């Protein structure tokens, strides 16, 4: 519990500072009492199969969030506090607490300043924006990523030439990953103590910077953004220690240029966004400048077939230069999503979608149905089905192999870089010397090695491979109050 904050002391001090500052501002200036808005939800998930890492076939999770809002000076000043917590049945990494928002906003005629912990959304896409970079992501919280509150000062200028946002982001936050008991889970726990920001990659005073200019001309709207700072998506890798295996994340300094376009024409909403990133690495190797982009359109077919229903189509193509990186699961994919809106008093909605890799026979089917079942209760049913062509390219490691045979086997498959291979051989070799080949210690290490080998061999051609057994149906019941 409270793991996000425990591990990064600097950030927690900063968050505390923000709490004190905003509470002070609120105490001094605010007069009227504010308003609380809360929700609590029970998430029940059911899996079709057991997975490699877990036999769990069902999981329950309790999600709570609340927001306190108060404004004064005729709305020129406002204060928002919005914490969020989750209690998970199986995975302690999913017992989380986060402050999504704790901020003070002051508005003037041509500018506003937002200070504190906030969530910021960039991008025109609702399925995997590539430019959205301000907030860190928690993959523990949600398979598709939930935002973690980011401490910042954001000056926003509202002028004839558009809206210009300037951000100073303080207190970098690490990405969180699900643990071994989650589904989908990682083969080993993320070892945050071993997470690192290599020398020469520390931000000066721990500050990152960003800016975004948005403007429009007739039906065309655009935004150009730039981010300089610690990469939000870390370079995730094994520690290659077969005795105490773990996952480590390494953060590098990156620069990102983002472009967003939105053009409305004849009921169509055309969208384009791209991010060009310099400085990212994959398993320690520089990958140079890469670009990820998304191009698509939305069309709403109102009163379909003369009924009161409407159907919204969202068709997008996503592209990512990075071939090997796990971060680029959606590398060259086509999204096709259709939403049937019932336009009734219960806001009933049904969504069907598919994400299909254009190169390989793998993809995702998704279905979602939601409806308000009483004044302040909502039911949401969703299903996600993964289909993959799993190509097993991993060699089998056994105790019978000698150290030299291990080395040759692993080198032949070219799964590891030289330094990683060295770490494996060193830890395993030491163990064999100390305990003997037939010891349970060596057996456990060999099992760990096999897991590493299996996962490392999941190359770009079947990245969804690790999600093969993770298809699920989820029921979410939420109460608003």
């Amino acid at each position, binding site marked *: 519990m409270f793991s996000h904050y425990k591990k990064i002391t600097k950030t927690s001090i900063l968050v505390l500072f923000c709490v004190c500052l905003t509470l002070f501002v609120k105490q001094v200036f605010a007069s009227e009492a504010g308003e609380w*808005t809360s929700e609590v939800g029970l998430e029940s998930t059911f899996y079709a199969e057991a997975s490699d890492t877990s036999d769990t076939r069902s999981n329950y999770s309790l999600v709570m969030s609340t927001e306190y809002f108060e404004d004064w000076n005729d709305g020129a000043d406002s204060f928002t506090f919005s914490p969020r917590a989750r209690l998970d049945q199986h995975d302690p990494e999913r017992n989380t607490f986060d402050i999504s928002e704790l901020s003070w906003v002051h*508005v003037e005629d041509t500018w506003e300043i937002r200070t504190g912990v906030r969530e910021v959304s960039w991008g025109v896409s609702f399925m995997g924006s590539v430019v959205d970079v301000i907030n860190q992501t928690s993959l523990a919280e949600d398979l598709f990523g939930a935002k973690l509150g980011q401490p910042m000062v954001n000056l926003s200028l*509202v002028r004839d030439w558009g*809206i210009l946002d300037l951000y100073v982001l303080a207190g970098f936050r690490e990405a969180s990953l699900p643990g071994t008991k989650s589904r989908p889970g990682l083969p080993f726990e993320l070892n945050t103590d071993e997470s690192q920001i290599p020398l020469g990659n520390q931000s000066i005073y721990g500050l990152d910077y960003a800016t975004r200019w948005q403007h429009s001309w007739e039906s065309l709207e655009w935004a150009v953004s730039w981010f300089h700072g610690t990469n939000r998506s870390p370079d995730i890798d094994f520690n290659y220690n077969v005795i105490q295996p773990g996952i480590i994340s390494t953060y590098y300094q990156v620069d990102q240029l983002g472009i967003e376009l939105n053009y409305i024409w004849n009921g169509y909403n055309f969208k384009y966004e791209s991010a060009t990133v310099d400085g990212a690495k994959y398993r320690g190797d520089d990958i140079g400048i890469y670009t990820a982009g998304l191009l698509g359109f939305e069309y*709403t077919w*109102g009163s379909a077939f003369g009924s009161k229903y409407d159907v919204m189509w969202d068709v997008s193509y996503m592209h990512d230069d990075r071939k090997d990186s796990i971060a680029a699961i959606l590398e060259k994919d086509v999204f096709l999503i259709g939403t049937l809106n019932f336009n*009734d*008093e219960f806001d009933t909605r049904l969504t069907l979608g598919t994400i299909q890799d254009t190169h390989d026979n793998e993809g995702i089917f998704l279905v979602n149905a939601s409806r*308000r079942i009483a004044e*302040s209760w909502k039911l949401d049913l969703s299903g996600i089905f993964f289909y993959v062509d799993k190509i097993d390219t991993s060699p089998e490691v056994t105790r019978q192999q000698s150290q030299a045979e291990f080395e040759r086997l692993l080198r032949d498959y070219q799964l590891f870089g030289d330094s990683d291979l060295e770490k494996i051989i060193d830890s395993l070799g030491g163990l064999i010397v100390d305990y003997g080949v037939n010891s349970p210690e060596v057996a456990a290490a060999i099992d760990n090695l096999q897991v590493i080998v299996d996962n490392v061999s999941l190359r770009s051609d079947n990245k969804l491979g690790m999600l093969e057994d993770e298809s699920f149906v989820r029921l979410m019941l939420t109460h608003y109050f």
Partner: protein
Amino acid sequence: MGALVMTAVAPALAETPEEKGLKIAQDGEKVGHGWVDSSNSMKMILINKNGDETVREMHSAAKEGTNDDDKMLIVFDSPRDQKGTALLTHGHADQENEQWLYLPALKKVKKIASKAKSGPFLGSEFSFEDFGGAKLENYTYKWLRDEELNGRKVWVMEAYPKDQYSGYTKIVSWIDQEDHRQYKAEFWDRKNTHLKTLTISGYEKFLDKFWRPAELVMVNHQTNKSTKMQMGDFKFASGLQDKDFTTNSLQRAR
């Protein structure tokens, strides 16, 4: 006596029913001008054929433009799962209106292509096109007759939407001859059958000039559902500016 009637009718004969209809609509638009800015609360009660009610509450603010470029912000207060959702509309004389939706759960602004005019507004019996934003030139008009309604002299006239995406073939309106208040409207669907009837009541005058109703009731004769829209807390000329209608203000709208 006969001569008196003749002189009263003669000017009317000079114009066709179409011209008279257009004149009524034009005058009505002129009377409506000059409100500068306004805000009010709205409560929508959706009633199904069994009489079950669903309530939606919202509040809105609007600023008058100089040339059909009015700006409007609607913020939803209930049901609770939609609290904080907000819709910003920028009207344009020479191009389609622009609309942005703020989704509080995602903290994201979404530009929307507002083509689906005939669809229901939030599951109510009102459709998007029933809500203001209608421009004079989007319809052709025809005066039908003069009548008396609730002791007031009214014109009965028809408006025919030009837009092929409209859900109506015609809208029949009952309009006060003195101050252009609308009391009633009948909506005829694409199959030219009577679809809905709107009744407007509880008018109150603001700034000594602008009539605003307290209740609009829309009854759908084909589904037997109805929607009551109650308005209140009217405020005029409270100094709203363009800066209150940007995508920045949309994100902090409450």
